[in-house]
């Protein structure tokens, strides 16, 4: 399966550390927050790769580092055979035409001083794609595409609801006809009934425009709904990566299993039937991750080896990657 598909993005051993400094006058480097600590994966053209994990697991940082909004500490990001890490500012900016981002907070990510029209035409101007009448037409087309009335073009963001603002954010991301759209928790600040509207819109746009999505969210059921493949992150590392059905039917990593069992199911009969794995404790600090496997401190089946050796992400079945020493036990 993996061999036939065209790879759009290739992430190799990507690391992003944020330095911790102490001292106001002469800051000293006293450690690192290992937000992303060596992740490797591919995104195939036309697919939706879901990236799930709990708060602070580094999923947003992965998205931003792929776009080089954060410069990676180490590792490579190939986008259509170009290594983004080798590019300079100007080249990078040019490349970003093909990769765009939809942000989590539709309130903070739109400038309150700009009208919808200017928000959507700015990318067209910056990249010298359209001017004058052509630009106006393109803005109108974009608004239609995301289901907003083109007459709203002179309104300001505060005149819109959260769901409508997120549509503006989506239109802005699509203004330059990108190949890859990184959706960073695009629905988590919206109400349930509006979430479904936005997700349906994202699915329609993908069909219509052949987009590739990296869909980052903490809501496991929503990620499973929209994704073709899913990657589960924990404390800066990918724990498991496989197809949407395989990860639900045969999760091989104890963390994935616990995560799945913690998701509430909106069905009183089903939820009484389920066996729950309740994890003890909290996520350790990424500034001081545990020795060995990152999950070993909370893992219900951790053994001595887990505290010593860091497990590599291995392909256990075709297309099914797991980072656990004892994943074979669940096969």
């Amino acid at each position, binding site marked *: 399966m993996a061999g036939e598909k065209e790879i759009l993005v290739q992430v190799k051993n990507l690391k992003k550390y944020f330095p911790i400094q102490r001292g106001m006058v002469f800051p000293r480097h006293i450690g690192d927050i290992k937000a992303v600590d060596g992740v490797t994966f591919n995104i195939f053209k036309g697919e939706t790769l879901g990236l799930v994990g*709990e*708060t602070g697991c580094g999923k947003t940082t992965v998205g931003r580092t792929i776009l080089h909004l954060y410069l990676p500490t180490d590792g490579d990001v190939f986008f259509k055979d170009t290594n983004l890490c080798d590019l300079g500012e100007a080249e990078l900016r040019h490349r970003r035409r093909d990769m765009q981002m939809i942000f989590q907070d539709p309130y903070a990510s739109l400038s309150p001083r700009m009208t919808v029209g200017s928000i959507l035409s700015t990318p067209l101007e910056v990249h010298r794609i359209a001017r004058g009448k052509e630009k106006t037409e393109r803005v109108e087309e974009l608004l239609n595409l995301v289901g907003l009335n083109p007459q709203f073009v002179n309104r300001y963001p505060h005149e819109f*609801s959260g*769901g*409508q603002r997120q549509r503006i954010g989506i239109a802005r991301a699509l203004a330059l006809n990108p190949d890859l759209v990184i959706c960073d928790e695009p629905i988590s600040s919206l*109400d*349930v*009934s*509006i*979430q*479904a*509207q936005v*997700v*349906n819109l994202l699915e329609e746009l993908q069909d219509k425009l052949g987009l590739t999505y990296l869909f980052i969210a*903490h809501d*496991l*059921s*929503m990620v*499973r*709904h929209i994704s073709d493949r899913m990657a589960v992150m924990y404390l800066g590392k990918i724990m498991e990566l496989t197809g*949407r*059905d395989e990860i*639900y039917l045969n999760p091989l990593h104890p963390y994935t299993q*616990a*995560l*799945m*069992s*913690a*998701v*509430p*199911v*909106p*069905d*009183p*009969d*089903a*939820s*009484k039937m389920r066996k*729950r794995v*309740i*994890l003890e404790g*909290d*996520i350790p600090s990424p500034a001081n991750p545990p020795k060995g496997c990152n999950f070993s401190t909370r893992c219900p089946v951790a053994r001595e080896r887990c505290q010593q050796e860091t497990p590599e992400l291995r392909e256990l079945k075709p297309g099914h990657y797991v980072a656990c020493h004892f994943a074979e036990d669940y096969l």
Partner: protein
Amino acid sequence: MSVLLEIRDLKTRFYTEDGVVHAVNGISYTMNEEETLGVVGESGCGKSVHALSIMRLIPDPPGKIENGEVWFSGRDLLTLDEHTMRSIRGADIAMIFQDPMTSLNPVYTVGFQIMEALKLHQGMDDNQAQERAGELLAMVGIPEAQQRLDDYPHQFSGGMRQRAMIAMGLSCNPRLLIADEPTTALDVTIQAQIVELVRRLQEKFGMAVMWITHDLGVVAELADTINVMYAGMIIERGKVRDIYKRTAHPYTIGLLGSLPRLDEEPGTKLMAIPGLPPDLLKKPVGCPFAPRCIYRVQQCLEELPVLENTGDKDHIVACWQWEEIAERNR
């Protein structure tokens, strides 16, 4: 089981610069001892305001409880003076809030904040209160509880803070615990811990719990009865199985259809509810959900539907078309 709480025609409004916000528009229901009630609805449906009205915690001005009665153990809470009300809050009815970071005071230790209620309501001295606070923290599963009493809220993680809030809420053995979105700010694995904890404590102490949330998944596991709210009204209420399996109101159907299920088949399409949440500044004529409802008829735009029984025990719905809709949906 006997009735613990009875609410009759509660109305709460806010008088703001932009106009009158009709936050709660006449809700009535009863809650039994030891019952778990789920109050479900999207933001701005009045679920939190209705709970704050029960506790008489609505800031006045701009808010005002305009009408209604809240009967709790033989007294109408809305007629009590502030002094008596204070003796009920925290002691008989306790509340835990959504965001444990903003509802704990950052400049006092966690222990001090738990001890405060014990000293005030149970007349304990410092030593007794300290010991009891330690027990409470241990009960909600915080390791080395006695030592952690001296910690400040920022030294606790999100899940631990919510546990501390629960310990505080339970400190005086309340008969009713109102939990206002207690797990919304938490990750799923931590949410599962908290849900399990509340369930265990409820069994142990036999209190009633009102669980306010927008998450239909969480209450499916916890609740006995569910109130579905929209635009400050209860639009459907029933036993948990009836709400999920014999859904009658088009809004509830829409909410359930908007949720992806972890066990869904590939290619399932979400049934989004079209349109926008209601504007509470405008008092609706007719059914508040009518503008977004795909089943609406002329009557829905003109007349406010009344709650009527669906034939299932205790299952009521406010919709002119429910019979046809429920039939089609089954």
